[in-house]
């Protein structure tokens, strides 16, 4: 089958890859590019484990064709820490034990970052609605929501 050549930017790095025309971006990230931080839960847009940003917009990578990434810019969990320096959300999630098995965590972090970029001072309800597309079978969500609220408070303090 004819492979398609895709030119894109991933976490700020110009990247090229070959993919099948019907392959999902999630599949290409994991299997063609070795970026396995992005997880697959459902493959149908329901769980959010595959969350990425596409030109800065939060998206499920299982609902994007890899070929659609051509000419666009992708952000994955691998680009969240700056070298060894964790993003404040990542640090808080560890400190506050906002994860157990960790399968949902990359997607939750990407979605939470997108939420805080738009709304640095969310209410608890806004956090819960903002993360409604991310399912977690382990934590019961409370610890996730508290970690996001705490990070938001910390980031507001650092910013002021």
């Amino acid at each position: 089958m004819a492979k398609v050549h895709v030119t894109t930017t991933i976490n700020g790095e110009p990247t090229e890859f070959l993919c099948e025309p019907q392959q999902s971006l999630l599949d290409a990230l994991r299997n063609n590019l070795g970026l396995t931080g992005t997880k697959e839960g459902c493959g149908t847009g329901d769980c959010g484990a595959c969350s990425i940003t596409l030109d800065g917009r939060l998206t499920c990578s299982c609902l994007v064709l890899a070929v659609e990434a051509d000419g666009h810019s992708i952000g994955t969990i691998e680009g969240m820490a700056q070298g060894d320096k964790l993003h404040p959300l990542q640090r808080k999630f560890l400190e506050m034990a906002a994860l157990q098995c960790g399968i949902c965590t990359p997607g939750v972090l990407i979605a939470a970052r997108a939420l805080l970029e738009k709304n640095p001072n969310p209410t608890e309800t806004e956090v819960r609605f903002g993360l409604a597309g991310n399912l977690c079978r382990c934590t019961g969500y409370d610890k996730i929501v508290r970690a996001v609220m705490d990070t938001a408070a910390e980031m507001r303090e650092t910013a002021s």
Partner: protein
Amino acid sequence: MTEIRYLAPRTLEDAVSAFAAAQGAASGTARILAGGTDLLVQMRAGVVQPGTIIDIKKIEEVTAITEQPDGSFVIGAAVSGATLHDHPRFGKVWPGVLEAVNLIGSKQVQGRASPGGNLCNASPAGDSVPAMIAAGAVVTVQGPNGRRTLPVEKVPAGPGRTTLTPGEILVSFTLPARPAGSGDAYLRMIPRTEMDIAVVGCGVNLTMAGGKVTAARVGLGAVAPVPLLVEDAAKALIGSTLDEAALEAAAAACRAACNPINDKRGTIAYRTKVAGVLLKRTAAIAAERAGRK
């Protein structure tokens, strides 16, 4: 999955000719790709197996939002819910249409899902459709024989079917200019608070002057094979002060229009009753927005 051809034309003319040619070919069906939040799920489930996918997101007209000098809005069919949300003016003029579009799925789904995809997927429960019907939206369609326009409620033909003819692509929605004193709203009933399919969806669009309704449109979703324009409900509201008798008459018209299915989300009796309840609640919000005190 079988072999698929992916095309991303830059003009509508190219998209239409590729679509028409691929639909005529033996290589199986061709599908338009907007946000892909229905199409990719259906492909994964094996429900549709397109031979050709035509991505329309590189076409400018299909991805633009324009406020015209006369106050009307033209929304490209493939504009995502998130993009519509970020438009500085749209949500101020059409808060009901925006809230309906933004009810589609999660924030992640919003990043891609389009009103055009919602309409062309032709689910009886598509959330944006009753709000667009209430708004009086007119769609522009382009096909091998040129362009035509039609009222949005004429597009769905039944579950999963539209009235678009082979090779036709939905280009945009045009929402008319708003007279002063206008307001719209959309409410849906779902068993959860987020991420579910409407049991009933109701869109109401009102214009009021001196405390009286001068113009009204009502759209209902998930209560029939296609979303409905309920003209009798609008007639019951026009001329009234939205007093209890007028609201009850409009609610009765909504109940009478219902021809729903029984499923795990709601029985026929429940959906029918809720249609009337939602009409009253939605009309109240639309009236507030129209400036009724």
